[in-house]
């Protein structure tokens, strides 16, 4: 039995289709990432799973419990961290934690082993009001509160958004450790670079799942050679590459340009020659392994 089983979920808000037939199956103990930009449907899907929103059609089950008929059971076995900070700002760190432990009929002591790693970081500030914590610390406290009743499934909606790079990295280290506890973690993020930290991911855009697999497998499926080009002036290089061959994909990546040719007879030398002939200054042309963001862009191209 899958820990999370999602079948053909559709959700509309007026005219807008937020989820357009989403199906996913997540195994027990998996660290599963839902990767997509703002407005892709991530929050709607998560709210349906935690029984806070009803789907128009389709079914979903958490540990075998239906999200509509067994909602009470689900609320007891799920830890949920919404995208917006939702703890009590006027309660202290410790009061928040005690509050959540109490409403789930447990104590901080009972499940201390699960939250110890985070709690030692929070402890020096246990008398500080939650509203006065930094972004990274707020997220850690929210995670603590979502874990305090030792849930079977953890649903985390963009836990690292707005958090700086150092705190983000620490947060992911924590998530990885829950696998050993048998907890299933379903986490969403708009950061493509966090995809690699998950065991499996789903790429979501406009309410559609574009692809699902392990990050390595999704990268392996990239169908054509991908080149990175560093040349200047940037704007002219972009225009030049767009008219090189049949319907190429040309994506700006920082100071470099990623180029996917639809023909197989293109080579590093041919690209270099083509740009040099146009009087552009070429610093680098290299074939590279795609990243998740390249895969996301490739999938978006089709829609």
């Amino acid at each position, binding site marked *: 039995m899958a820990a999370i089983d999602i079948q053909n979920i559709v959700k509309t808000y007026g005219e807008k289709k937020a989820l357009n037939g989403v199906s996913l199956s997540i195994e027990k103990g998996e660290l599963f990432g839902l990767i*997509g*930009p*703002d*407005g*892709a449907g991530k929050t709607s899907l998560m709210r349906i799973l935690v029984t806070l929103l009803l789907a128009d059609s389709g079914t979903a089950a958490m540990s075998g419990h239906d999200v509509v008929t067994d909602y009470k059971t689900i609320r007891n076995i799920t830890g949920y961290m919404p995208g917006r900070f939702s703890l009590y700002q006027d309660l202290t760190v410790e009061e928040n934690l005690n509050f959540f432990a109490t409403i789930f009929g447990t104590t901080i002591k009972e499940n201390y082993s699960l939250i110890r790693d985070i709690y030692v*970081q929070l402890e020096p*500030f246990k008398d*500080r009001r939650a509203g006065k*914590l*930094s*972004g*990274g*610390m707020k997220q850690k406290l929210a995670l603590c509160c979502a874990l305090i009743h030792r849930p079977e499934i953890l649903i985390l909606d963009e836990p690292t*958004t*707005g958090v*700086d*790079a*150092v*705190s983000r*990295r*620490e947060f992911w280290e924590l998530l990885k450790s829950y696998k050993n506890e048998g907890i299933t973690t379903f986490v969403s993020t*708009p*950061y*493509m*670079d966090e995809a690699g930290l998950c065991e499996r991911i789903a790429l979501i*855009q406009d309410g559609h799942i574009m692809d699902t697999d392990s990050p390595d497998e999704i990268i392996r499926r990239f169908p054509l050679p991908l080149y990175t080009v560093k040349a*200047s*002036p*940037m*704007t002219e290089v*972009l225009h030049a590459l767009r008219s090189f061959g049949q319907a190429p994909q040309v*994506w*700006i*990546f*920082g*100071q470099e340009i990623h180029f996917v040719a639809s023909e197989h007879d293109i080579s590093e030398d041919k690209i270099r020659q083509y740009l040099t002939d146009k009087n552009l200054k070429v610093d680098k042309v290299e074939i590279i392994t795609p990243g998740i*963001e390249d895969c*996301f*862009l490739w999938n*978006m191209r089709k829609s």
Partner: protein
Amino acid sequence: MEHEKVINSAPVIQVKNMYKRFGSFIANNDLTFDVYKGEIFGFLGANGAGKTTAMRILCGLSSPSSGEIQVAGFDIYKQVGQIKKNIGYMSQKFSLYEDLTVYENMRLFGGIYGLTNKEIKERSANLLQMLGFENARNTLIKDIPLGWRQKLAFSVALIHKPKIVFLDEPTGGVDPMTRRQFWEMIHETAAGGTTIFVTTHYMDEAEYCDRVSIMVDGEIRVMGPPAELIQRFGVENMNEVFIKLARAKSTEL
């Protein structure tokens, strides 16, 4: 624009020994840097490092405690009005008025910047054409897809042809395709001679900049082109550079 070209052009932002104190707290501690014409400059730092304070000063919204600062050729103490007329601003959090149409937003911002009706008409027709949005002229902003709004907001920030545009985390959370279209617009704008000043804590946005500075605890710790910093720190990307610099701060509040 590459580094060589950057340092050959004239500075449009000159900051010398800038301090900003709030009581005993030093939010900006002796900042000195120049930003050049047509440059894409990334102003980076963790939350609370002092970058918003500095940006507010450069936009003429707050005064420094001390220091010599010129923006777009105007003095920060005596010519704030001139500075405001010569800069544009856009953020991901607030961009356009949702209950106004595309054109009404352009008219509003054009009017605020003192453009004549004729200028507003010409300029907005021009911007809409560049975006390929002519058909959306009379559409309410709230009916326009999120990705488009960003591009539109950037165009509106350019309506008065400012010398410098300040962008505050412009593409956080935006889909990868729109994000790229957006950065292409920024590159084109910079190639036309407008300076782009980006504040962000998204390190992947930093990689699009010609040069970046990274603030820690109110000070600029490092400055240079991203590729150079990545090499100097012996790491893979700007995220790693940032983590190395900010590591000591990680467990504090």
